[in-house]
């Protein structure tokens, strides 16, 4: 499948600060791609370069095969952008906001009126289309921004933290909509909510300090971290002793002892029978599979220190 977004050695510097450091990326057409990273990792800078709001210092970036340095206008015709801030015009009604966006995209009235009606209906905003965005709830405002980004039927949709600040119901509604349009266009999403990336994205990239540090599907990333599977084994006592027994086994990748429990990382689930054999006669009370989360992967790659 041809790439919707490609970057080669993409670098952006602000004085001494390198926000993007030789960043290489390829996003397949029609996929939902998630970009994760702590604050200041370079996510927004990457989106700003890809949406032609900012010029890179060096390297190349292509959207739908078009160079961001020389084909800005053509790229902007193809993309929809949901920025971090709502950026709605509070002096225009919801419908007027959409009409202005359509005119900026050069759409004809007969073309955009129908499309606005359809989208407002779809997003559940039709009955409030004559109201000003200030009177909307946070979830409705976000839905209106998403509607605006979809109005001109973009080929690539950039969503920069689309559900930040939304309540769980509104977040679910946005997720459902993103899932429903997945496949019809390429979706490039940045988020702080790892559950969001896990729910929505086909592939996920994790970046930090302007560099790509991991790339793959959710499962691939989890597998890479764990090197297999984690089990929590609870003993009646003497957990330290049984932990030492397990530590010497070839298929065990890691051991952590907490009180009466041992968290054991195995190369694969097939090793579990060997572990059970080795623990023959031990006072095992409970064995539970401990699923690795994307958060575990994220924290292991980017560290637990709070970023400014």
């Amino acid at each position, binding site marked *: 499948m041809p790439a919707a977004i490609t970057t080669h050695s993409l670098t952006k510097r602000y004085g001494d600060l390198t926000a993007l450091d030789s960043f290489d990326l390829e996003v397949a057409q029609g996929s939902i791609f998630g970009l994760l990273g702590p604050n200041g990792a370079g996510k927004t800078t990457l989106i700003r370069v890809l*949406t*032609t*709001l*900012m*010029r890179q210092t060096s390297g190349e970036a292509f959207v739908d095969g078009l160079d961001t340095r020389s084909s800005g*206008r*053509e790229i*902007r*015709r193809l*993309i929809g*952008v949901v*920025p971090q*801030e*709502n*950026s*709605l*015009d*509070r*002096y*225009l009604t919801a419908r*007027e906001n959409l009409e*202005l*966006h359509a*005119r*900026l*995209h*050069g759409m004809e009235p007969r073309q955009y009126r129908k499309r606005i009606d359809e989208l407002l209906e779809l997003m559940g905003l039709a009955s409030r289309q004559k109201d000003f965005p200030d009177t909307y709830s946070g979830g409705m405002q976000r839905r209106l921004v998403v509607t*605006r980004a979809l109005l001109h039927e973009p080929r690539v949709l950039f969503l920069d933290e689309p559900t930040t600040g939304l309540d769980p119901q509104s977040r679910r509604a946005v997720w459902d909509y993103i899932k429903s349009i997945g496949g019809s266009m390429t979706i490039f999403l940045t988020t702080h909510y790892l559950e969001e990336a896990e729910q929505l994205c086909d592939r996920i990239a994790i970046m930090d300090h302007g560099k790509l540090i991991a790339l793959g599907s959710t499962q691939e990333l989890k597998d890479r971290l764990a090197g297999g599977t984690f089990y929590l084994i609870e003993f009646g006592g003497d957990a330290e002793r049984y932990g030492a027994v397990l530590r010497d086994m070839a298929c065990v990748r890691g051991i952590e002892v907490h009180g009466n429990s041992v968290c054991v990382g195995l190369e694969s689930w097939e090793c579990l029978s060997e572990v059970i054999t080795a623990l023959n006669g031990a006072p095992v009370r409970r064995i539970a599979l401990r699923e690795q989360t994307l958060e575990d992967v994220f924290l292991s790659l980017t560290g637990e220190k709070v970023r400014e």
Partner: protein
Amino acid sequence: MFKGAFAIWRRDMLVLRRSILSEMVAVVAYPLTIYLAFGIGMKGYIGLVDGVPYSLFIAPGLITMTAINAAYSESTWSLWFHRKVQFTIESYRVTPISVSEIVIAKILSGFSHGLVKGLAVGLVIFAITPFRFSPVHLLAYLAFLIPGSALFSCAGVICGTVLDKPETIGRVEAIFIMPLIFMSGLFFPLSSYPANVVPWIRALPTTALFEGARHALVSGVFSMNSALQVAFTAVLAFGLSVWIFRLKTSE
């Protein structure tokens, strides 16, 4: 090419139309107070100025001042608000319009505000005072009012682009814009200045604007030099505002 600029200008005019009544009250009140205080209150103390009654002397300047103030304020605050508060400039910039179109739209909007509000003040002064002029003079006057409003609209775009804090915008208005207007012979003739200062004051585009506009409206005398000076400065300011906006947005 100007479809985007027209769309943004249309948006600004829609917003103006919605708030026109409340805006007009505020816009008319200030110059009218000045006119009543100086033009009527002081006329017993001040005789003829440059051969015309004082109330007649200041009337064209007040209309011009309203227009350029409105053009400047609209461009500055609108651009600042859309850039720093509403982030709408960002939403315009991810559509297939050029940065120049955004600047042109904002200049046009400031200019339109200036023209509408200047004419409104003119009508009120015309209605409630004995100030009269020939309709033919109006054409010559517009030759000053239009580039003058455009010039201050461009100045507003530059300030709204460069200044990030609202209090700085207020300071610029107090330190540069108002002195430029008041020093240019709005309330007194240039002959009041010491002789060696007059050439410097005459070099100001605002002097060409206020002097030229007054002569055009009151006596129908059209100064081509003054009109060209205002028009040339407006073109220069337009180029500068586009360049500065492009530079700022590329940061």
